[in-house]
């Protein structure tokens, strides 16, 4: 049964996780993009978002309950689809972008009558 305490824990943990992701980005911008690398911040904020997702799933959506097993099964299969859609799209489009020169893209678009 959800209690006041579980919501409070989820709320405080979420605030901390948001600030933990927000502050490095602001520090990075304030230092004129010198402090901390892009790749590091990108990885860190995505990791923090995933941790926050788990926190909210447990404390706000109560997926820790014993009768929510099928909810979890459904969630995991959906996350599988989400990862295929998002990572697949990004992968295909960046490889396409990398393996065609801008001249090739211009020629292709001219052939298609885009210009």
């Amino acid at each position: 049964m959800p209690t006041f305490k579980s919501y409070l824990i989820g709320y405080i943990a979420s605030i901390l996780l948001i600030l933990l992701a927000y502050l490095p980005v602001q520090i990075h911008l304030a230092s004129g993009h010198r402090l901390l690398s892009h790749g590091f911040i990108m990885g860190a904020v995505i990791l923090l978002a995933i941790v926050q997702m788990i926190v909210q799933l447990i404390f706000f959506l109560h997926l820790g309950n014993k009768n929510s097993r099928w909810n979890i099964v459904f969630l995991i299969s959906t996350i599988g689809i989400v990862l295929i859609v998002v990572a697949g799209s990004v992968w295909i489009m960046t490889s396409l972008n990398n393996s065609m020169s801008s001249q090739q893209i211009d020629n292709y678009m001219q052939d298609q009558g885009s210009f």
Partner: protein
Amino acid sequence: MSETTLEHHHEKTENARFGFWVYLMTDLIMFSALFAAYAVLRNNTFGGPGGGDIFNLPFVLTETFILLTSSFTCGLATVSINQKKLKQALWWLGATFLLGASFLIMELTEFHRLIADGNGPQRSAFLSSYFTLVGAHGLHIAVGLLWMIIAGIVAYKRGLTEKTASQLTRLALFWHFLDLVWIFIFTIVYLIGVL
């Protein structure tokens, strides 16, 4: 009420909850398509502004805290319902509504500012995908607010029955889900967008 009817009602509530969860998961797949479109198009600014030029991080952080707080007050409404305190639940629901409405107004203010500066969805592929993703979330919030009004009135008129309580539980599920989707918009669109 006899033991078997109680169990029957409980089972019905559980089934409805699971059915609603299935809907939320299909909604998540829809959001994933919008996230994928944004991730692919985010650098195609067509000479227009990029994320770093137009996003106001402290403003978005405030929006995030407002929505998170509304998710928390919505949870407190659930706690009140479980304790059979209808009046208290309606107060928390009202607080959730006000916070949700503030979030939506802030989002619309941001959209208005962008469009007024000539950075509307037709400016570039990046802005089209941005408006579609964030706008789809805002539309869900608007639907949630409407549902809150209706469910609140129904619960007030009919009192706390198995049916009204079950309805409010699904509403809470919807609201927490939207908060979760926003965390990813905040991270992927705004935090990574300004880097």
